[in-house]
């Protein structure tokens, strides 16, 4: 049985994460036949699910004005467009550490003013959560979180409305250029059956899988850095139920609600990445394993370090499970913590583009670029 009902599409999007799905939805305004290929059995089940669920408004990037400003600009749009998935009865606190921080409270305040990210003074009782000897100041940030399950529903509803063909449990294993300018994509289903479909343009939105697809297609790799990351799923004491805490700016922790599983995630800049490595364009071999490996949780480490700043973190209980993902970033952004989206046009084949997603709420930036790209033709 054929995986998809057609053999040729105007656009094929490989990767059914938030970026792939929303790019498909956006392109459906201009193209009639669009397919999304996803190797898992559900959309938005990898990085678009396994993240901190933070809708960034700029506060998280006090060392990069561009990322902070873009987040501040995109924030209200995202809140309006995905209203159903957005959780508002939640307070996000940003605390500035006195130790090892790359910024101080004064700089944070000033930077947020410049980036247009809103902050306020927290209530005095909140200040008691923090150890004032190592926390310089605490700010209440206007920031929200999203429920990844509801976000998936919203995206899926739009895709159905836009008549986008979706192939789940289907892996794109190779892409090649055809003589007539079309692009062929070799698909494989879970049983190992293969099928080739073609398109006028193809978007590789596979995040950590971008280089694997390029390598398997014999195309030059992108320079990407990976981290095997862990977000520990935890249960919190009552006072932390509707709040998020982020200590800035350096090797610190975040405790964020994770509405999709009714838990919180605990992450730590030092302990969340278990290993990190890099692919380079010179090397034709990508180093991302196909499946997420099992690793021993670093929850204890995250909790212990966190307790230095917020002593009540000792009452946080590990659920025994963590969200694991291969975080994929551009190596050049490491020093300033920027999180730009990568849009690599014509990856060895004309009209075969790669998009490395960044923050969920920055989706608008890439849609704008894609629009420019299409209209420039």
């Amino acid at each position, binding site marked *: 049985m054929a995986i998809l009902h057609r053999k040729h599409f105007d656009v094929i999007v490989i990767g059914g994460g938030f970026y792939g799905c929303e790019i498909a939805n956006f392109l459906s305004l201009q193209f009639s036949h669009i397919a999304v290929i996803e190797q898992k059995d559900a959309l938005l089940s990898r990085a678009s699910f396994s993240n901190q669920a933070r809708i960034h408004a700029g506060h998280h990037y006090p060392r990069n004005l561009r990322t902070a400003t873009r987040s501040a600009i995109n924030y209200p749009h995202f809140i309006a467009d995905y209203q159903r998935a957005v959780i508002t009865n939640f307070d996000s606190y940003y605390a500035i550490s006195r130790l090892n921080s790359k910024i101080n409270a004064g700089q944070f305040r000033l930077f947020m003013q410049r980036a247009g990210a809103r902050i306020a003074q927290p209530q005095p009782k909140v200040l008691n959560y923090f150890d004032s000897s*190592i926390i310089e100041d605490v700010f209440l940030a206007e920031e929200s979180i999203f429920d990844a399950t509801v976000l998936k529903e919203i995206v899926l509803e739009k895709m159905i409305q836009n008549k986008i063909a979706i192939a789940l449990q289907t892996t794109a294993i190779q892409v090649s250029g055809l003589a007539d300018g079309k692009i062929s994509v070799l698909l494989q289903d879970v049983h190992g059956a293969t099928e080739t479909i073609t398109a006028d343009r193809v978007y590789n939105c596979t995040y950590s899988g971008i280089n694997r697809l390029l390598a398997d297609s014999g195309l030059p790799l992108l320079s990407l850095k990976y981290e095997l990351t862990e977000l520990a799923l935890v249960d919190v004491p009552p006072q932390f139920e509707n709040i998020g805490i982020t200590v800035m700016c350096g090797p610190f922790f975040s405790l964020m609600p994770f509405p999709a599983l009714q838990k919180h995630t605990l992450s730590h800049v030092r302990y969340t990445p278990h290993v990190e490595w890099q692919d380079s364009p010179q090397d034709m071999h990508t180093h991302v394993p196909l499946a997420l490996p099992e690793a021993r949780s670093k929850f204890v*480490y995250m909790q*212990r370090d966190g307790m230095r700043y917020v002593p009540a973190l000792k009452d946080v209980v590990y659920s025994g499970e963590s969200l694991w993902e291969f975080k994929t970033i551009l190596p050049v952004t490491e020093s300033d913590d920027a999180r730009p989206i990568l849009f690599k046009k014509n990856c060895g084949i004309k009209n075969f583009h790669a998009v490395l997603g960044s923050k969920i709420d920055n989706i608008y930036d890439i849609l704008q670029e894609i629009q420019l790209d299409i209209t420039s033709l």
Partner: protein
Amino acid sequence: MKIENYFISVLIVINKYHKEFDCYIADLGDSLMSEYENYEIVFVDNTDDILVQKEAQELLQKILNLRFLRLSKKQGQNRAFRLGLENVIGDCVVVVAPENDSVSAVLEIIAERIKGDRLLVGVTPPTDKSVLYRACLALSSWYCKKFLHVKIPVHATTLCAIGRPEMLVALKDDDVSREFLLTAIRNGLPYELFQYHKQNNAESDLKKLFGIMYEVVFVRSFQPLRIARSISFIMSAANFILLCVWVLAAATHSGQSLSDVFGVPFFLINMTVLFLILGVGAEYAERILYRLTYKPKPYIINEENSHVLGFINGVQRNVVIE
């Protein structure tokens, strides 16, 4: 079975880089990994040496749970220790000096700490210190024992295991106790004195405590040695001038005895100074010899010297406050 419910932080501050250091860290990492589920090795680089940074990057790739903290430029030891103590996350922090403390001694002190909440101080052999230093130390220990009623561990190193609560109290407290803790750790005298401070909060006690610390630090930081050296240097210089005068005078007053020319007291003084020069010379010769022959190596505890671990078995405490 690995121990899970106790988190260990091993803190290593290095002020000077030794080649053996890498193997030591690797060995320590392997040993900790085989016995403990939750641990970290925090090493603070206070060397200003670019080589250490390079080596550290390699070690970080190889060794699990290793953390590398670097000061922007070489600082005093207290600052380096403070940085380390402020960053560790364990139930207890074990302060280790790789050139003195063998991996087995580190493991032993951890095991002891887990058994009971005692703080433990390690020991090191006394041979790496000069005669004058040892004499001063002995004198100071005698003084502390006799007049301050404190027994100072003559051969303590910085190897010690401090509980997190004690460490936190000290780090949070006013500068006095913070400095005190850091100085105490640096000088290998952490626990009992610290406990003493906690139990007896009265100001007079603190002053007394400071008195003790002052004595200890004074001796430990070579203060008398420095003073002795400065004096002997000045005297040597004076003596040299006098000798020149003496030779000149002897040459111009040939045929007369020296005491005739200069008088007996002058001659005696001069001889005393000469002996002093010889004494200080010998002292320096010993130190130079020691520097040439000394190679830092882990202190292996075996049957012959196992008595130094007496305190670990609870037989002997290193510091007793009476």
